[in-house]
């Protein structure tokens, strides 16, 4: 599909990685830095072809550490920028994800999850990086993570991820998995004019008055870029609103780290998205995300057919975690079933919010995801 210097729109038959790439371009991403890794490689390959058509940059760096650093650099130069990787690369990126958080660099990190730890299972799906996405870098912070469960969502959520990153000046992650990445599906792409692209806030004051890390009411500072004449400083050190290091000041550290967390927490309602199917009257609610949610949905439908009041809560936003939604369903549901392709990661968040409501965890990994039957049985068991 090369040579067409235009955004896709209409119906297309794509695989997840390509959909992701197209979503990024549609969102205005013009910089990609990455390093080849299965099962995310196709994103890089596709962007290496598409980026130049939009005057954008594709660069393959020497490793994922460098990729993440370059992404931040490009972001500070004013381009919407991203990288894509899988578990091992994601680990290497954590250092500079921390830097992106600290310097509030808008950027998108796509992690196509595979089986770990370490090199693990390059060609099989997993959901094992959910916690790393949240806590992977040292220190206290909040990020945003989205979980697509279809090729369509690989497009829309990537697009969304950029808008969120730009709005909140925070690294935003797309936690896909090997199946969705490599799966081919029909994707409906709205025409550009129907796509709402969000750009970062620019300073409204003269360079002399500009304080690069002074937040507005939404706790997010406006962002000048290099070369715009603001001559600002940014650092990974604890810094004041000037961006100058103040490593000895407990007050500065408290104020800064607090804000970095709260700009996400306090805006959680605006950020969080979930899909709720038949949960209003449900006794058993399945909480599932990513590819697993698709088995879960058919399981729920089968359960209803059997007369079991089952429902599905699918967190589209994983971080910040949709606490209120889970809490609400927990009020009337008898039980919550959580199938995950790991030994139990997001289930902990569910349990935390479910309070007294029992939570059944259905773990499966190292092979293809849960079948609807497996989940159906678990629903029956908890009915």
């Amino acid at each position, binding site marked *: 599909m090369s040579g067409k210097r235009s955004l896709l729109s209409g119906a297309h038959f794509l695989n997840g990685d390509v959909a992701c790439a197209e979503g990024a371009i549609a969102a205005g991403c013009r910089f990609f830095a990455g390093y080849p890794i299965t099962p995310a490689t196709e994103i890089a390959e596709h962007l290496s072809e598409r980026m130049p058509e939009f005057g954008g940059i594709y660069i393959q760096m020497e490793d994922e550490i460098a990729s993440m650093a370059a992404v931040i650099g490009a972001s500070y130069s004013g381009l919407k920028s991203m990288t894509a990787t899988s578990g091992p690369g994601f680990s290497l990126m954590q250092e500079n994800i921390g830097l992106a958080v600290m310097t509030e660099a808008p950027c998108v990190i796509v992690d196509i999850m595979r089986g770990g730890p370490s090199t693990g299972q390059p060609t099989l799906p997993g959901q094992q990086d959910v916690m790393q996405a949240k806590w992977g870098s040292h220190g206290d912070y909040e990020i945003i993570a989205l979980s697509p469960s279809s090729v369509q969502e690989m497009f829309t959520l990537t697009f969304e991820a950029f808008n969120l990153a730009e709005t909140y000046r925070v690294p935003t992650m797309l936690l896909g998995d090997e199946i969705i990445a490599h799966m081919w599906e029909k994707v409906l792409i709205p025409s550009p004019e129907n796509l709402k692209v969000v750009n970062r806030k620019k300073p409204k004051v003269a360079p002399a008055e500009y304080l690069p890390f002074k937040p507005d009411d939404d706790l997010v500072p406006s962002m000048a870029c290099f070369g715009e004449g603001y001559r600002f*400083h940014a*650092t990974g050190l604890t810094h004041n609103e000037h961006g100058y290091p103040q490593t000895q000041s407990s007050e500065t550290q408290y104020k800064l780290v607090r804000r970095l967390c709260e700009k996400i927490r306090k805006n959680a309602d605006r950020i969080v998205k979930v899909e709720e199917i038949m949960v209003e009257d449900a006794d058993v609610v399945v909480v599932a995300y990513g590819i697993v949610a698709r088995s879960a949905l058919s399981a729920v439908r089968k359960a209803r057919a059997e007369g079991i009041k089952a429902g599905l809560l699918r967190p589209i936003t994983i971080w910040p975690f949709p606490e209120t939604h889970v809490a609400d369903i927990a009020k009337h549901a008898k039980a919550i079933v959580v199938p995950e392709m790991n030994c139990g990661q997001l289930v902990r968040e569910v349990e935390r919010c479910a309070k007294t409501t029992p939570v059944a965890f259905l773990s499966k990994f190292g092979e293809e995801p849960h079948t609807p039957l497996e989940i159906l049985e678990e629903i029956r068991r908890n009915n």
Partner: protein
Amino acid sequence: MVVKEILEHPLSKYLRTDMMPHIWCPGCGNGIVLNCFAHALDELKTDLDKLVVISGIGCIGRTAGYTNTDSFHTTHGRSIAFATGVKLANPELDIVIVSGDGDLFAIGGNHFIHAARRNIGIKVLCVNNFNYGMTGGQLGPTTPLDAITTTSPYGNSEHPFNLVHLAAASGATYVARWTTLHVRRLTQSIKKMMQKEGFCFIEVISPCPEVFGRRNKLRTGLDMMEMFKKASVVESFSDPAKAEITSDRIVVGEFIDIEKLSYEKLFHEKIAQINEKTMEQVS
């Protein structure tokens, strides 16, 4: 002597005066490098709005905070990778990295050789003080054999990098080495570097009396500078492989000065071609 009203320092417009005085120890060469850099900017009349100073971690890493330009203080060793993003995203910007030998060549070594190989338009000013100063004087990739550091208490057994040789071999288009005593030539080199396309590298041998000198019979900055004076020989455009650094011989000078298309130029030319092509296809 007539007492004069204290005027403002002529170079202060290149500095973030509100960040001054800098954190560096008495006799530390970092201030001299900053000074030479400011001199170079002054002589070049560089547009400060188009200049980005980037540094990594370490004493000299603070430089980014002291220059009155856009500046970024990255994680340890990542300044070059970060700068790669900055430069590619906006080729109009002049990018100067001021960082230390440990930052650029130990933890950041991989980024250095690849940026040089790509010949991306980044100018690297490496201040080599032979050790990790900020953490109290541990051995690093440039610590001379047998030198005493807090982590080589019996003398260093590692062979140091010859940075100019490394840079030349990796493909840099401009390579020079001076000491902080060679302020004039250093300033000239910085000017030259900033006017060149592609990846450029200057190594500055710099005194670190407080944590390195003290342990190696060079108690004060003056001792170290006098040592530089005695030891250094200017051998411009000699073989960088032979440009050794020993206590009685420091080969300084310009080693490489060649023209080579930069990565960003080549890449953006490609973009232009593709767009022409696609235009044709569209029409």
